[in-house]
């Protein structure tokens, strides 16, 4: 929440300044210190929390930086060598493709299942709705690490309840990349649905009853009403939810990392976040890891810009 107030505060001084520019006496044009003073804590926090790491990341990616440099040796500047190296590494492209595919599947599943749950919430009776909401809240509030560990035990090769229920003793879910991602997808989607469902449900309650009724009287079926009334009405929310999910699922770390520890082949299941971590912290190539992270931040920014633009265009219409 601190961040949102920052955004509001950033606007205020510029607005005031326009007032002053239009003001009459030149004296009043003098800068009032208070707004800037109020800005200082938030700006400082932003610079510290966001600015410093990004600058550090950029420098790292342009240097040669390994374990020796971490412990005090001088770091040489190598220009774009780290980027050249990762971009020429077929493994990087394999990981990138994998990450994008994983992200796409998870976003589509999260949004469609979230939509389904939202529609369900709208039709449920009071008691059941409350029950469902509590269930969603619980899934939402569970830390990613905790839930991943629990899911991992559910799919454990020898002692997991999934194999017991399915009667498939010894089925190794994590050793095959496809089933590995199946388990990872379950965890990510399971944790992603509540937020999507709640937000869409809030949107659904704002669609006027009369319009739906009128459409029904005009002979529109359930699917037509959904396609032509519900979806357009919820479009802004859907756009934002999709972009949020893309951002979240693109950076997935905990779920994949923990599952890799439990089983599976690391080389075949890395996604971008885990890959960057393994290169930098695991293999002590902080420079190349930083380059991967920069590429990742770049892609994330592109997605953000794209969706913010399509949203503002939406508003203008």
């Amino acid at each position, binding site marked *: 929440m601190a*961040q949102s107030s920052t955004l509001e505060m950033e606007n205020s001084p510029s607005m005031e300044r326009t007032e002053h520019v239009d003001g009459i006496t030149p004296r009043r044009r003098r800068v009032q210190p208070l707004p800037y003073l109020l800005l200082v804590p938030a700006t400082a926090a932003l610079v510290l929390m966001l600015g410093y790491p990004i600058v550090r990341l950029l420098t790292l990616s342009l240097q040669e930086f390994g374990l020796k440099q971490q412990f005090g040796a001088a770091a040489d500047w190598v220009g774009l060598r780290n980027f050249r190296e990762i971009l020429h590494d077929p493994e990087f492209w394999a990981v990138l493709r994998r990450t994008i595919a994983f992200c796409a599947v998870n976003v589509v599943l999260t949004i469609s299942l979230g939509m389904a749950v939202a529609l369900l919430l709208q039709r449920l009776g009071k008691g059941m709705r409350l029950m469902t909401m509590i269930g969603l809240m619980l899934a939402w509030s569970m830390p990613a690490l905790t839930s991943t560990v629990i899911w991992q035990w559910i799919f454990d090769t020898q002692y997991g309840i999934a194999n017991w229920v399915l009667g498939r003793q010894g089925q190794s879910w994590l050793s095959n990349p496809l089933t590995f991602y199946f388990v990872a997808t379950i965890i990510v989607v399971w944790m992603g649905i509540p937020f999507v469902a709640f937000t869409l449900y809030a949107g659904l309650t704002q669609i006027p009853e009369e319009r739906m009724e009128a459409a029904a009287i005009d002979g529109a079926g359930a699917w037509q009403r959904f396609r032509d009334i519900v979806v357009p009405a919820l479009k802004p929310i859907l756009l934002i939810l999709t972009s949020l999910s893309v951002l979240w699922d693109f950076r997935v770390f905990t779920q994949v990392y923990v599952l890799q520890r439990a089983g599976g082949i690391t*080389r075949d299941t890395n996604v971008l976040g885990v890959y960057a971590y393994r290169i930098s912290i695991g293999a002590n190539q902080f420079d190349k890891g930083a380059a991967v992270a920069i590429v990742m931040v770049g892609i994330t920014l592109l997605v953000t810009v794209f969706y913010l633009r399509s*949203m503002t265009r939406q508003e203008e219409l």
Partner: protein
Amino acid sequence: MRIIRVAAGLAALTMAMAACGDDSKSSSATNAPAPAATTAAPAATDAAATPTTVADTTPAPIVGGTGEGGELRLWLNGGDTPDDFVKFAIGEFNKTHPDVKVTFERQQWTGIVEKLTTALSSSDSPDIIELGNTQAQAFEAAGALEDLTAQKAALGGDDLLQSLVEAGTYNGKFYGVPYYAGARVVLYRKDLFEKSGIAIPTTIDELMAAATKLKADNASTPNFSGMYLPGKNWFAALPFIWVNGGDIAVQDGGSWKGVLDSDQAVQGLTEYQKFVEQTSGAPKDGDDSKDYLAFCNGEVGMMPAPGWKPGQIINKDDGCPAMEANIGAFAMPGLTTGTTSPAFLGGSNLAVSAKSKNPELANELLKILVSKDYQKQFADQGTVPALKSLLGDITGSDAATAQAKAAQNSRFVPSSENWAAVEASNILPDMLVAISGGADVKTEAAKADAAIEQILNG
């Protein structure tokens, strides 16, 4: 519609926060491995998983001294050093330094390289750390550790185990003091051997026959393993490679060359694959962190394990003390009767962080940790102590005597400052998981060779 706009606006704000939140998210990601390790590590160390001063079972933290004369933080890993040992060491230390506060923090082996990389370079570095002998060179080369060359004589000198001294030495300087060692042995169920009428195998062929017979005789137990070989346990696969004349990598001129795809290594790995396919019921992509549970569940006939494993099997918390009488051990046999397969020599070195604020005090504590009185405790529990003069004192179980025998023919991973990165990249576990799943040995070995060469020649 307005409210939808507002909702969308709110969501947009959330998104801005999410974008700004990158930093907190990534920092939590960096923290993730520490708790994540909890899941993969043996449960004996689980209770003390978090880096607190809380010990295994006793609620009282192991802390000594008042703190007026300075503080020391001691990190030891895994369950190899029982709490009583540490209490003894801190007690001894506080006799001469009552005003120095010593805090003991137990760490996990899983993910320790990553953790030390961050901890040793931070201002909040622990003073004394324990390093696996395969990991020590990387930190020595990086300048993360205090040079102890001048103290070597006082720290045990020529009495120290030679192979561990080598792991603790880089460029002629001494950084890592040998702490303890252990050669891997084969644990077996005495009662199941008796029931099936099997004698202790004296060759690898007999080992195969024994594992196969055990598996057949216990077919009614689900997941039963004649030989328990989870895919990620690469320590178990190395003897197969070595006994056939193969190796992981060799130095060729100035650079390293991966030789896992040599005929000898491939033969060993193929033999290993046969063991996995025909006799193992362990998860083909699992690690050895749950093997003691499988042993307690009666699902294991034999399993390769370090010498301290019986202690974990009979631990009171989640082990099975009743199993004690049934645990036997022998050194893994070689190709012909009377020989053993080269065993992986594990072990630890202790080191002082270059960032330690009290290196002199840390040295004093180090001296106690490698003193005869302290090291004698390792010999008494069946662990190979760091002092050669105590090797004859190794007493106790079958595992201890088997270990002493196995240690006579033991090998080690390539001695390179980059080896720790090879371990951190999971290259060998990846190869073995694939091989355990039935993949072509030569292809997987060649893949691993390429990856290892890339890192070792960094």
